[in-house]
């Protein structure tokens, strides 16, 4: 499991820019960002180099922030890669709440992020032969 920064965002002009500027000023480097929106508000999900520093900076700037544990999988570059992941989780009765993808800095492979309602998801995927990424493969562990 890796740590994702989840930010509550009211729908108002310039607000996402304010979030990005806050992270920039704190020297945070984002690897991936996904915006999920509803009619009333949005939730921004961020994978970055220092999640806890990001949370602190955003909270200081007045944002509502949570750290969320998600699974990062380096995706095999072939047809059926995503199906393998979802079938392995489904076989264990695990539910994927959302997923998104980004490309690693050295562009060798795509990384998919899965929010799964079960802490054992990483282990399940590893048993299925998938390459589950540890936190240190993606960012500094700044929680302690």
């Amino acid at each position: 499991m890796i740590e994702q920064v989840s930010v509550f965002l009211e729908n108002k002009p310039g607000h996402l820019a304010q979030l990005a500027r806050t992270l920039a000023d704190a020297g945070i480097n984002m690897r991936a960002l996904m915006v999920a929106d509803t009619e009333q508000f949005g939730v921004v999900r961020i994978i970055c180099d220092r999640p806890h520093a990001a949370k602190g900076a955003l909270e200081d700037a007045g944002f509502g922030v949570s750290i969320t544990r998600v699974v990062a999988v380096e995706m095999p570059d072939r047809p059926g890669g995503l199906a393998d992941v979802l079938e392995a989780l489904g076989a264990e009765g695990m539910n994927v709440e959302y997923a998104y993808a980004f490309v690693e800095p050295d562009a060798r492979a795509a990384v998919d992020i899965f929010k799964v309602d079960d802490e054992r998801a990483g282990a399940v995927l590893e048993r299925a032969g998938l390459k589950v990424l540890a936190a240190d493969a993606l960012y500094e562990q700044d929680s302690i």
Partner: protein
Amino acid sequence: MYQPEFEAMSSDALESLQVQRLQDMLARTYENVPLYRDKLDAAGISPTIEALSDLSRFPFTVKDDMRSAFPYGMFAVPLREIVRVHSSSGTTGQITVVGYTKRDIENWADMMARTIACAGGTADDIVQVTYGYGLFTGGLGVHYGSERLGCVTIPISGGNTKRQVQVLKDFGTTILACTPSYAILIAETAQEMGLDIRDFSLKAGIFGAEPWSDNMRRQVEELMGIKAIDIYGLSEVLGPGVASECSEQHGLHVNEDHFLIEIVDPDTLQPVPDGEYGEVVFTTLTKEGIPVIRYRTRDISRIIPGACSCGRTFRRMERVTGRTDDMLIVRGVNVFPSQIEQVLTGIPGVAPHYQVVLSKRGSMDHVEVHVEVAPDTDFDEIRELESLRRQVADEIASALAVSIDVKLVEPKSIERSQGKAKRVLDLRAENEGA
């Protein structure tokens, strides 16, 4: 004029009728309502008067008195003489119950018949009663007056705007009774349906239960091709029918044979002369179920000095211009911001910091409550945030009896003020200008 023998009384005859009715009312009330007896005894005031001016010695009655007497503590007659109860729309915390005897209902019907006649109504008219029927006094109040005057009465109640338009057209309605904002919605809905209400038989509207401006009056009159009459009332005193504009549209004639009106300075609580603004205070003269002595309405208005050319001699109060408390009126329902606060403090996941934002969407008032999400919320859970928002909206709707949009906002984003929190942000004037 429906009852010229009262509505056009000479001031001397009116005053002696008022004195006589006030003496009778004070004696009855002192005898039968412990709350008043205790109050007067404690203040060492005898429940007798020689002249109307003696009333200024009496203590005021406030909403809290009615609330603490819930449900029947203010009734001055045994329940077997009560034939109807109504209840005030959303109040802070607890509703209040008002009761009517058979004679109260009779008098009320007379007063509402006067109101409809003020709008030019006669037995030849067809009245569409679009005020809500039920515990709210509006629907049944207008209904009885319409029947009393001999009009065809359409008890359609509120809601289903397209059907309102269809009935206006098909039934040949000549007088519409509803809130002014709903009247505008009806007119706009008719336009969307490709109909022009100006082509209908409608000639007048009796609009009340919420504050409105002269601009809005002109808008309704223009859209509907009618004369729009402002009416005033409150359940603690009667319901609709306490006062009504006549066709002069310059102030609302108070039914002074049934109510004494005083305007008092809201700070000193001393009566002010005619013409000066202050808080409106009513004393009932004929009410049997719930007589009230010097009830503080919290509404701000003034007496318009001078005679009215319509021939009615009852003095006129100006259209209510504001409140001395923070009550809002949303689609005819009274809403206190403190009620919203009470709901929020009972819901984990939101902070009790909120702001009520009033705006205009088209002609309708739109109310949105901005509520802060608690800082320890799991912000990744969209579904939980959505269900939190729905829960807040549902609980507000059930506590206030009016549905209000809810917007979740970021923790600590609502301005914390030093003194009195600015709970209400009113953008309606800006929206109207836009």
